[in-house]
Each structure stands twice: as C-alpha cells, then as structure tokens.
C-alpha cells in the first residue's frame, strides 16, 4: 500500500482517477459484492458519494432480493458446522435476527432433552460464536419465542421435557420472561407485574413497545397439567412489564400451536397455519387488526387464499414463515404427496392411528396402514411427540418415556449412520459436478426431496383481505433435504434456515418390517442461506 502512495505522488501530474470516478454501475457492483452487513454499512462513512452509493446499493439489494424471490431466482448456500466449538444439532429452537447476528436459543436434542445455550451466528463473517453470557440463565427449553426489542432479546415461554434421570419427572411449560442484553451479553429474568399463563409453541412479535403473544399450549403457571391449546392474545408491555389478556372480536381462529406470526405493520399481524391437536392441522391464515383507538376491541379477519390449488400452495401448518417486504416465504418439500392435505377445509384430519402407543405384537396387521399414515403426515407426528401435544387425557405423555428409552440405542445407531451420510452429503454439495448430477435418481446422497421455496403475495392483505401464492415454475434441486421444526429468519437480502428434524426415508423403508414405528430421526445443525441469484455484472 505504501508503494501505491509513493507511486501516486511520482505520477502526480497525470490525471488522478479515483474509485468514485468509475462508472456508477461498476462502483455499485463493487459495493454489492461486499457483505451486506457491517462491511457495507460502514462504507457509508467513507465519503458523501460513498454514502449515497451505499444507500443505493442497499436499496438495490433489497429490491433485487424481493424480485428474485418472487421469480424463484434464488440460490442456496449450505454451511455445515465449522470445526472447533460450534452449535450442536437441534430442533424446535428459537431464533431471531438482530443487526449482524442471528441468535439461536435452546431447542431439543434427538433424545428430546432441551438446551439452554445461546449462540450467535455472525452473518457478516458466517461463523458461530457462543457469547460468554452472564446473569440469570433461562432454563433449558424448546418452543419458546425469541424476539428483539431495543437491543435486547426477549425470550418467553417454552417447554422442557423431563430428563431421563431421575425418572418420573413431569415435563413442564414456562411462563418466564428472560431478557438478553446483546450489548453486555447478560441474561436477566424479568418478573412481570401481573399474571400470565405458561405457554409453549406460541408465536410472538413486537409491535411498538408491546410483545404480542398468540396461541400456543397453555397451562396454569404453577401446574403443568392439564394443558390445552389456546387462541388467546396476551400482550406484554415492555416498558412496565405488565401482561394483559387482549380480547378480540369473533369469529376467531381456532386454538392452535406451532403456527407462525408475522407483523405486516403496526396495526396488522398475520397468523399462519399451526395445529389444534394431534389430528388437526390448519392451513388457514388470519389477520389480527389492532385499532388505533386503544379502547376498541381488536378484530380478527379471516384471510382468503386466492389459489389454494395443490401445485402452488405448500403445506403451511407447521412450516415456519418469514416476511420479506410484502412477500411471505415458506419452505416446503415438493407438493405432489401432500396435495390432498390442502383441500378447501381449514381443518385437516388424518386417521387417528397412533402406532407409537401400540405394542409391537399388535402392530403386525396395522403396520402397513400405520406407516402409510405416518408418511403422509410425517409433518405432524414428531411435533406431537416432542412438543407434547398428544393430549394428556390420553396416556400419551406417560408412554413416551419408556418408548424412547427402548429406542435410544437404535436412535444412536441411526444418528451414527446419519452422521456418515451427512458427511458424504457435505462433500457432495460442495463439488459442482456432484450438484449437477443430483438430478440423476440413483445418486442417493443428493436430497431426495429438497426444500422448495414458496412465496405468498401479501400486497392485498390489508385492503382486500386476500393473499395469493405466486406461481412457482422451476424446481430447485440444490435446497436442503426436507426437515421440520427448523427456524427461518430474514436477514439482509437473505433468508436463513437453521437446524431441524429430518426423517430418514431410506431407514423408514428398511425398518418397516421391524414392526414398531421407530423411524430414526436426524437432527441437524446445518445452516442454509437463500440469497438472490447474483448476476455477473
């Protein structure tokens, strides 16, 4: 660099060209190649013309991303965990994007035990960092909500499974609120000034100074049983930490959990999908309207999906969603197998065969049917078993432990095998040749049913209460293998998917003769990022 300076002085008589004299398109291109996080934003401070160009570039990045999302011009990048300390595999964790970071808290292991660790994925350097946090840590839990407010993360609710030792512990739902200060890396437990129930599998978002919580599985704060799914709205004032239960007009959405919630603007929130119980999957969408006048009642509006036909509409009940501009993004495996579930009715029922609770001897006859049901509703079952939605009135909750202990050995074996597979998959994904050949069916390493991108147009949701799936034309083969219970958050001109639970389809077939329906699950700690397909200049 010194050399550069010297030389500049020597040839001082020549016309001095600066980077700002480059054609605008080239300058913008250079900036757009920078990481859209800290790096690009800091470039605003270089000079006035840089600031303008950075602002233009950011706008363009956003615009291009929205445009490319709606046209399916996207690309996946896959990040397997870095060497050294890294986040362990998990599902049903909580995730939230704040500035340059995606935070991930808690979640479940393969054995249904829960974590209480907090990780930060630095989006500009693409590395996992575990902040050295102090203060009052939350309990290990999954299915909690994590939202950001004023440089803090607000962690609320969630559940934990009983740990295997000592036995006969009951699982429980929390009503704790923890704040994580992202500047000092400090946890604190907030004691609210009023009551709220314990909730898990709910959804939450920040509107102004309020955290709005909808639905979930609820129980009384100090008594885990009975619990029930709810359609209540609870509002926490984040300035004085007072909860209140918000009333809203009829008709209301059915009680549910596992749904997703996005904020459209300060007055409108969308609720998407979810489940009302073991046999009820929802694919409906509701809009919660918050009136300006605080004394008025909040209003629910059912939202009509204009094209629910099977080719364009994905299964939305248990898939997390995220909003980019006026688009709602959902990932789901290809829809051929699922089209049946998207029928007009909002409530989807499946035969209530719960083979999990049937002893091996009895299953021989039912086996075929049970497995079929499982494969059709593979979305539903793991949730049922992990978030404890098998209603407590049946003996489900009690039966779960012995079963999972008996299967532990097999699960571990399955995990081993999966690890090998993932390793193979990893090498595969990064070799361009292998990616190209992934269309060849015999290539078993390639995802058999890669996640596809589905985009819902929300531009008319407020005015006309309708939404529309944007027609999907191309099949994208470089997506990750289908998983569920992952997290999906929007970063800057990208969407980040992390973790989740995967059903190994090969093993499913192999083990059907084995009797019991103990398909090994695979838990992921892979990170997948969707960005716009970038064109070369």
């Amino acid at each position, binding site marked *: *660099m010194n*050399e*550069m*300076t010297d*030389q*500049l002085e020597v*040839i001082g008589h*020549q*016309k*001095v*060209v*600066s*980077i*700002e*004299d*480059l*054609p605008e*398109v*080239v300058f913008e*291109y*250079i900036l757009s*190649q*920078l*990481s859209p996080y800290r*790096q690009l*934003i*800091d*470039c*605003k*401070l*270089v*000079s*006035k013309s*840089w*600031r303008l160009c950075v602002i233009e570039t950011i706008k363009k990045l956003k615009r291009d991303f929205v445009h490319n999302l709606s046209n399916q011009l996207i*690309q996946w*990048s896959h990040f397997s965990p870095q060497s050294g300390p890294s986040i362990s595999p998990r599902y049903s964790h909580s995730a939230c994007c*704040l*500035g*340059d970071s995606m935070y991930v808290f808690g979640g479940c292991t393969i054995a249904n035990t829960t974590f209480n660790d907090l990780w930060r994925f630095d989006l500009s350097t693409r590395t996992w960092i575990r902040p050295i946090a102090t203060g009052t840590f939350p309990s290990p839990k999954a299915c909690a909500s994590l939202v*950001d407010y*004023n*440089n803090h993360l607000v962690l609320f609710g969630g559940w934990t499974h009983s740990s295997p030792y000592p036995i006969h512990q009951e699982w429980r739902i929390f009503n704790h609120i923890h704040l994580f200060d992202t500047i000092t890396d400090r946890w604190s437990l907030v004691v609210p000034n009023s009551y709220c129930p314990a909730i898990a599998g709910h959804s939450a978002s920040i509107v102004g100074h309020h955290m709005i919580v909808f639905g979930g599985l609820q129980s009384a704060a100090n008594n885990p049983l009975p619990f029930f799914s709810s359609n209540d709205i609870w509002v926490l004032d984040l300035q004085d930490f007072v909860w209140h239960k918000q009333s809203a007009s009829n008709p209301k959405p059915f009680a549910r959990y596992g749904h997703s919630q996005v904020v459209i603007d300060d007055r409108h929130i969308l609720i998407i999908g979810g489940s009302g119980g073991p046999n009820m999957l929802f694919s409906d969408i509701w809009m919660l309207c918050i009136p300006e006048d605080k004394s008025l009642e909040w209003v629910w509006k059912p939202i009509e999906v204009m094209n629910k036909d099977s080719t364009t509409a994905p299964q939305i009940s248990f898939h997390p969603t995220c909003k980019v501009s006026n688009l709602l993004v959902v990932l789901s495996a290809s829809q051929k197998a699922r089209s049946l579930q998207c029928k007009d009715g909002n409530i989807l029922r499946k035969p209530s065969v719960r083979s999990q609770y049937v002893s091996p001897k009895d299953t021989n006859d039912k086996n075929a049917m049970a497995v079929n049901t499982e494969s059709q509703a593979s979305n539903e079952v793991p949730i049922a078993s992990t978030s404890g939605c098998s209603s407590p009135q049946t003996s489900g909750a009690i039966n779960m432990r012995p079963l999972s202990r008996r299967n532990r050995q097999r699960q571990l074996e399955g995990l081993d095998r999966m690890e090998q597979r993932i390793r193979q998959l990893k090498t595969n994904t990064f070799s*361009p040749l292998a*990616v*190209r050949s992934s269309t060849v069916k015999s290539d078993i390493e390639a995802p058999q049913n890669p996640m596809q991108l589905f985009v819902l147009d929300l531009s008319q949701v407020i005015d006309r209460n309708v939404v529309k799936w944007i027609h999907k034309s191309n099949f994208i083969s470089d997506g990750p293998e289908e998983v569920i219970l992952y997290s999906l958050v929007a970063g*800057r001109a990208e969407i980040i998917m992390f973790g989740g639970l995967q059903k190994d389809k090969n093993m499913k077939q192999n083990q059907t003769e084995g009797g019991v329906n103990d398909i090994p699950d695979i838990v992921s700690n892979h990170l997948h990022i969707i960005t716009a*397909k*970038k*064109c*070369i*200049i």
Partner: protein
Amino acid sequence: MNGEYSLDTTEGMAASGDPPTNNAVDDYDAEEALERQREEENKIKIKLKSFEGGVYECGLTAAKMSVMVANMLDALQETDLTKIATREPIPLQNDAVTNKALEKIVEWVDHHWDDPPIDPDFDDEKERRNEELSHWDKQFIDIADQGELFDIIAAANFMDIKGLVEVGAKHICNKIKGKSCTEVREMLKIHNDFTPEEEAAIHKENEWIYAKD
C-alpha cells in the same frame, strides 16, 4: 457448452443412427473443431488504438472478448477475416483507454481468450461468483498505481469485457473487506468530506440500521 453445436450433434446422430452415447463424442468433436477455429482466428492480429493514440496488436479471438470490439467487427461485415488485420486500427474513444490501460487489457485478453465459454445452461453462477481469482489474475490486477487500476476497470467496462471488470471489482472488493472506513479512505485516497456532525449523524443512522431491519 451445448447450444452452439447442437446442429452438428443432431446431424451426426441422424447419419449414424447410433444411440445417444455417441452424442458426447460428437459434442466433443464439435467442441474441438470450434476450439481449432478459435485458435486459427486468434493467429490473425488486429490493431486497437488507445485514446492517447498508442496502437496495440491483439489476436482476433482475444479482441472479441470485448463485446464492443466484436460488435464493431461484425458491423464491418468482412467475410475474409484476414483482411481485418490489414485494416486501420480500431479507435477506442474513451479517456479511460490510456496506453497503459490498453496494454494491460490486451495482455489480459491474450491470456484469457481460450477460457471456456460461459454456459448459460449451467446454472451454477455461484460457483463462478465465489471462485477466488486465479493466481494469474491476482498478479495481473495487483497494480500499485490505482489511477491505472481504475483506468483499466473503466476501460474494460467501456469495452464491455465482463470478465476483466469482474476481476477488477473483486480485487477492489477484497481490498475493502475487513477494513474500517478510515482505512478504506486511506487506501483509496478518498477525501473525507463529512463534517464531524454529519459523521456522527451517520453513526447514529447506522446504529439504527443494526438494531432494526
């Protein structure tokens, strides 16, 4: 790499009636034929004239990497390519195309003319995008005089040589990466035209961007 030779391929197949396994062979032959043609054409030298008047010789295939030059040559509608060599030098009317810049550009296209063509069907742009610059390109573009560097990028942009613009852009991008704004300013000799108040305001604006969005 398919589109251009599809005609040859289908003919070959129809004639021989062979199963599509031969397809690859034909493809390969066609590819080779085209490569030979490009090689032959590159032996024809054409002249390019810089804004400052310097004339530089360059292989025809290499020169055609500039979309602008290729269009100009097409416009001549010359069937006998050898005649192009004897023509007047092609003038490049942009003040970025200095002698030095043109010399470097000719060096670049002469090195890259036999790069495999970009296949639009191969939708792995990211492979290309994430690709590090080759060792040769790195040495080529590591130019101490930044006036010259920007001239080359601007000239390459003017002449519409996408590959070279990309090399230049990536090079600058790599230099910016990991640097603070002060370091960027210093490196690129940019005058800070903000008042301290303005700077503080942007800091605040940036903080807001971090927190929000």
